[in-house]
């Protein structure tokens, strides 16, 4: 059945263009001086305060998935789903606080985390982590642009390519003005706006439905066991009917996947290291990541509870059409439960607020990730290997040029994957298998003075190969295959790096990093 998009197509253009214009104007008036040198462009001036770093980490770590998938976990696993989602994705932030403080203390002039690896370990580890960081950021950006454009298309009817194009144009409208500082300023505004949007939605659900009614609905689902998702298997259905169980087994599996997957997405991602680099001092970096963990946690928790759990309690069925007044909306797939529920509770206003929140999340993360790829390319590849004697002016031009080229390449990639019908479903769960083998080597490089360079290098590669091989052998299973794949990746890389270090320790003097700068060390 063909159901018209509930919102007009101009609404998504208006939301995106308004946001892009505000960020560009703010950056132009407040911070364009930060775009005058490559050093301030890539490092943000290294003097940004706690409030902005805190808000920036929150905004950058809120993806479209944070709002969509956390609500899906509420719909799929019941009340515990959003808790597990939030816990799993929060764990990397305190860890990053310790790592960031350590790196800013031992190597104050570092601009990127691969640069730290170059000086701390060696050239091959530098190349490996430059590659990993670039792939992580590109993967995430393609995923979030695709997700944002699919959602925009589904709820406004605007063409997929037009939304993707507009998002990329917004990324390159304000970032080239002041680099990292621009990204962090825009993140700050987005973060504050996001809280307002989500509080409106959460309070609306509280007032219009209420927790007692939701509890009664969950009890009803557990008793009557309705088929809410006709396409899923029996195991998934059982977990959905178990919505009041603290120890929902499938939900616990998701917790493991979420912890491991997100470790790689944060600790091996220059976007978050950039926030460490931009902070005023090591103490500010530490405090900001710690408070960001506490400020970020309730975002998926409250959203998933308000929208996902409430949808489960009302017994929403995938494939059905629902109405609010005269308007209707088609519940196309379980992952789209959040906007459908926002529409049912608040009508068009709810859907618009939710799209505004997802649009903000997509722009802040996407812009940060594109800048992260630029930083690694200019600082680690161009300055590190191609032109080590490049002057600041040359680096600044290279930074802006790289930003535009990457943005264009990403747009082509997003449209290409869409055209060939490549699905990003499950990519979120599979992320840990691809990236998280580098987590243990990064932690050891920061804190263990005897870390073996060969061990750190091969742990990252072999861990990923083992996890990927296992996962593919299970037929890329997204239930328990992906859980064990994630556990294997982290375990294998830990065993290799630790054993190699114990058998052949290579003592390192961290004080030697104090004056280090540039990516040509090792």
């Amino acid at each position, binding site marked *: 059945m063909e159901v018209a998009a509930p919102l007009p197509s101009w609404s998504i253009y208006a939301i995106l263009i308004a946001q892009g214009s505000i960020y560009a104007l703010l950056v132009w008036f407040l911070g364009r001086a930060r775009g005058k040198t490559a050093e301030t462009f890539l490092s943000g001036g290294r003097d940004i305060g706690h*409030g902005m770093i*805190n808000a920036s980490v929150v905004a950058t770590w809120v993806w479209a998935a944070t709002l969509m998938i956390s609500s899906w976990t509420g719909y799929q696993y019941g009340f515990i789903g959003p808790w597990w989602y939030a816990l799993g994705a929060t764990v990397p932030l305190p860890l990053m606080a310790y790592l960031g403080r350590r790196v800013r203390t031992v190597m104050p002039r570092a601009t990127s985390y691969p640069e730290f690896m170059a000086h701390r370990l060696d050239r091959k580890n530098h190349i490996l982590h430059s590659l990993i960081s670039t792939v992580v950021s590109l993967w995430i950006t393609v995923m979030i642009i695709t997700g944002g454009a699919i959602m925009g298309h589904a709820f406004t009817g605007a063409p997929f390519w037009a939304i993707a194009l507009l998002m990329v144009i917004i990324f390159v409208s304000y970032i080239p003005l002041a680099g990292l500082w621009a990204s962090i300023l825009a993140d*700050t505004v987005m973060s*504050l706006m996001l809280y307002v949007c989500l509080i409106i939605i959460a309070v609306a659900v509280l007032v219009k439905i209420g927790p007692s009614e939701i509890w009664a609905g969950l009890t009803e689902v557990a008793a009557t066991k309705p088929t809410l998702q006709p396409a899923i298997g029996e195991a998934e259905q059982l977990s959905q009917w178990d919505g009041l169980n603290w120890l929902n087994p499938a939900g616990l599996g998701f917790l493991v996947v979420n912890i491991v997957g997100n470790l790689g997405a944060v600790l091996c991602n220059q976007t978050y290291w950039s926030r460490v680099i931009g902070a005023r001092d090591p103490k500010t970096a530490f405090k900001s990541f710690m408070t960001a963990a506490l400020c970020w*946690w309730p975002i998926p928790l*409250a959203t998933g509870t308000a929208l996902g759990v409430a949808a489960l309690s009302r017994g929403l069925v995938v494939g059905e059409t629902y109405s609010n007044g005269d308007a209707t909306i088609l519940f196309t797939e379980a992952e789209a439960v959040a906007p459908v529920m926002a529409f049912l509770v608040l009508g068009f206003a709810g859907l618009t607020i939710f799209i505004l929140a997802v649009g903000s999340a997509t722009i802040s993360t996407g812009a940060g990730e594109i800048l992260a790829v630029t930083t690694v390319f200019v600082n680690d590849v161009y300055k590190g290997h191609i032109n080590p004697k490049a002057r600041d002016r040359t680096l600044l031009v290279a930074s802006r040029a790289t930003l535009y080229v990457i943005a264009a390449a990403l747009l082509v990639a997003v449209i290409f994957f869409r055209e060939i019908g490549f699905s990003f479903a499950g990519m979120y769960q599979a992320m840990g298998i691809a990236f998280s083998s580098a987590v243990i080597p990064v932690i050891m490089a920061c804190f263990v003075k005897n870390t073996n360079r060969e061990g750190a290098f091969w742990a990252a590669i072999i861990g990923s190969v083992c996890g990927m091989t296992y996962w593919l052998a299970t037929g890329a299973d997204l239930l328990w295959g992906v859980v064990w794949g994630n556990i294997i990746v982290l375990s294998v890389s830990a065993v290799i790096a630790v054993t190699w270090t114990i058998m052949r320790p290579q003592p390192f003097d961290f004080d030697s990093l104090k004056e280090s700068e540039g990516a040509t060390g090792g």
Partner: protein
Amino acid sequence: MSELWYVLNHWVTIAWLILAAVYAYYAVIADLVIIVRNRKREQESGTSKT
């Protein structure tokens, strides 16, 4: 799980969200105050920071 526990759970999620928002706003405003003070000081001393 009893109704009381679920209701408590639901309220905790919203209260935490509001507290997080209040802290984020407070921290950003504190930063802005510092930025404005520094700008005033720079203007008074006739220097400009890039």
